[in-house]
């Protein structure tokens, strides 16, 4: 493929950001608009001052034309996030559950619709930064527990997983290859042939190529 290797198995943050723009948000339109059927999404008929759910990218277009205001998601306020932060501090071995796209959506809304948010943006920014840092420290710490077979990512969001992916996959692949050398040997000892082991190994190398 023409894509550089590190982009083949992994998304760039900007691509994750793009995916996040497909999330639904509630808006308060100021104009009426007929409903629209697009290939992927349906945009409901908009009536002034009637709340509707539309994809974030539509909301941003309307917002930039001053045709709507965005109702901030229920998790995007200082009280809720502070709560989550305390939860993170209380459970040092667990991630609190945040939306799958919390980093992207909060960043977009802070940049493009700061006037619609309920709390001052500098407060939101600082609590979001705190949350991100504490979760980053936790995931770093978790990397010590890597093994060759599985990894628990409960509570992490897409962007956070995406950030870890190149590192985690490479290390786990290597650990598995090292681990397999033991199994291969025992398989060869018991069966008297190691053709199975060799075939498996080829598969693994194919996988490895995408990482």
């Amino acid at each position: 493929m023409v894509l550089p290797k590190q982009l083949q198995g992994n998304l760039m943050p900007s691509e994750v950001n793009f995916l996040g723009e497909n999330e639904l948000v509630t808006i308060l339109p100021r104009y009426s608009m007929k409903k629209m059927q697009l290939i992927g999404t349906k945009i409901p008929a908009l009536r002034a001052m009637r709340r509707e759910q539309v994809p974030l990218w539509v909301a941003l277009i309307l917002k930039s034309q001053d045709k709507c205001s965005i109702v901030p998601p229920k998790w995007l306020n200082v009280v809720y996030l502070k709560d989550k932060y305390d939860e993170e501090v209380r459970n040092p071995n667990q991630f609190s559950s945040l939306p799958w796209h919390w980093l992207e959506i909060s960043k977009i809304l802070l940049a493009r619709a700061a006037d619609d948010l309920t709390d001052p943006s500098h407060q939101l920014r600082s609590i979001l930064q705190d949350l991100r840092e504490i979760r980053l420290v936790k995931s770093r710490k978790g990397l010590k527990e890597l093994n060759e077979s599985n990894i628990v990512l409960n509570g992490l969001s897409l962007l956070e997983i995406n950030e870890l992916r190149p590192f985690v996959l490479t290390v786990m692949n290597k650990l598995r290859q090292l681990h397999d050398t033991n199994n291969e040997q025992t398989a060869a000892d018991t069966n008297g042939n190691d053709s199975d082991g060799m075939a498996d190994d080829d598969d693994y190398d194919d996988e490895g190529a995408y990482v």
Partner: protein
Amino acid sequence: MGNYYDLDDILADGEKVPCRFNMTVPGLGYLEGNPGKQIHKDSKVELPFWLAQILAICVLQEESGQSFVDIAAPEAVSTKVLNAIKTSSTSVDLHKLAPNYYKFIERWCSMYSDPDATNTVMQMLKERAFEINNYASNLTKGINNEFLYSLDEFEKKLYKQTSESNKQMRNWLRD
């Protein structure tokens, strides 16, 4: 076993291992610097792993089970090095031991089952990977650090990938 097109695989196969010949072989004298002569029984030569492996697997006579050469443990898997790894995995200079250390260990361990060595190396990989991640996520933490010079080829690749992904993330957060 490895990937045919992977240069590191080829280099790992070329890693030298000490061997002892169990018989006199005519014409192989060039291996110890005597072109055209024979190589004597019991002479010790360093052979690349791909050659040593074949010679050590091929059995001379069915009943004796003896092969052309006996392979001695190279430095990379010697007790001394394994102990050093157990003591402090991050201060071992892997690049000096073997530029493709992990690949070589894979090959060595799938030939001679050595769970102890495998476990030691896996533990080392975990510890070193953690350290690599630390360096990769922190640009200010000295690029010229000694630890970064001791990485083997696989670890260098890991370092590059990780710092690349961290850089992208930082750039995205900034703009």
